[in-house]
């Protein structure tokens, strides 16, 4: 028993922030950002917009494309580093907006969230506990980045993207790893200052990242995860139609291409959205799906805070 993706959708903020917009408010330039990252613009939530609205739109689009009614969904997973509310879970609110009445859960696996949601949904399907699942990745990195730190704030954007899954014969194959103790400090955000009178915890709560170490982790983990799923299926990269990588930095994508060849198999849209954490893989899937034929072999692959990495080989 496996799964099939039968619908996708996305929700994007209206405001587009170009590199030149950033250069107008901080010491940076379009040339500096685009040469080091490949990013030209990103979407940022503005006053009056909520992540819940983006997520609900993405999920609604995916349901419509899947010709699936809300009451048919028996598992809803939202992957997010943080929704509009610390509690309740964003999945509860999305369920409320869409009229979904089933088990819902949020997972926070940072940029790997969509892959971990896919893995969890697959486990529910295999256990016979669900037949149709909605998975939504919704991220507002603009709330987590320090806008005074020009080396990181230029990298990220906000977005939501969703997929509807149903049980199918074709089994996806996964490779997952969490390195935990080994290097997690290179990418983290503390929870921020609290006002409990019994401790003196203080931190700005912003994202911290060591770019060089994350580059090495990213390229080596992409390579390892893809090789592992290929080996499990006795396939080679030549057998794969597309590899949808987490869109963190064009230089990382190029690092993967250096190791696997076939640049035509590695589509990217980071130019327009920046790094949208767990939303990046389903957003790329949503934009690229018009180029897929049913039966195509896809690898989805992500890496991020944890340090976690994951790949999934599935049939479209």
């Amino acid at each position, binding site marked *: 028993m496996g799964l099939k993706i039968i619908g996708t959708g996305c929700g994007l903020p209206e405001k587009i922030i170009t590199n030149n917009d950033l250069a107008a408010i901080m010491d940076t330039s379009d040339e500096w950002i685009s040469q*080091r990252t490949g990013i030209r613009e990103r979407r940022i939530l503005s006053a009056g917009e909520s992540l819940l609205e983006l997520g609900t739109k993405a999920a609604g689009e995916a349901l419509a494309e899947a010709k699936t009614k809300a009451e048919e969904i028996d598992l809803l997973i939202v992957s997010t580093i943080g929704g509009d509310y610390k509690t309740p879970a964003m999945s509860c609110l999305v369920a409320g907006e869409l009229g979904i009445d089933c088990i819902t859960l949020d997972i926070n696996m940072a940029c790997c969230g969509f892959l971990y949601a896919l893995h969890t949904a697959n486990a529910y399907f295999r256990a016979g506990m669900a037949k149709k699942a909605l998975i939504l990745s919704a991220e507002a990195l603009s709330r987590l980045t320090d806008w005074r730190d020009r080396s990181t704030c230029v990298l990220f954007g906000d977005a939501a993207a969703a997929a509807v899954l149903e049980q199918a014969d074709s089994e996806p194959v996964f490779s997952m790893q969490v390195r935990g103790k080994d290097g997690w400090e290179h990418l983290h955000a503390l929870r921020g200052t609290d006002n409990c009178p019994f401790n003196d915890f203080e931190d700005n709560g912003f994202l911290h990242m060591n*770019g*060089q*170490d994350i580059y*090495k982790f990213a*390229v080596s983990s992409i390579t390892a995860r893809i090789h592992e799923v290929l080996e499990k299926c006795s396939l080679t990269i030549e057998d794969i139609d597309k590899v949808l990588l987490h869109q963190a930095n064009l*230089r990382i994508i190029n*690092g993967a291409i250096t190791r696997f060849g076939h640049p035509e198999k590695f589509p990217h849209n980071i130019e327009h959205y920046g790094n949208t954490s767990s939303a990046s893989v389903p957003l790329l899937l949503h934009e690229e799906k018009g180029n897929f034929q049913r039966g195509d072999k896809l690898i989805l692959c992500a890496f991020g805070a944890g340090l976690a990495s994951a790949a999934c080989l599935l049939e479209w």
Partner: protein
Amino acid sequence: MKEKIVDIIAAYKGVDAAEIATDKPFNEIGLDSLDVAELVMQIEDACGVEIDITPELNCIDKLVEYIESK
């Protein structure tokens, strides 16, 4: 060792090895921080060593010294 590393960097930049200054900081020979990270990975594979990137390893000569000390 130095020759091997210079060849890797020259191939990455698409220039002649003779054009690579080994005593100049990486940013002065046209390598930004992610270029250095990519090259360190290639050098690790080629030389079979693990390299911790630190601010002190800022030119080829210092990188060679570091690798030879391991």
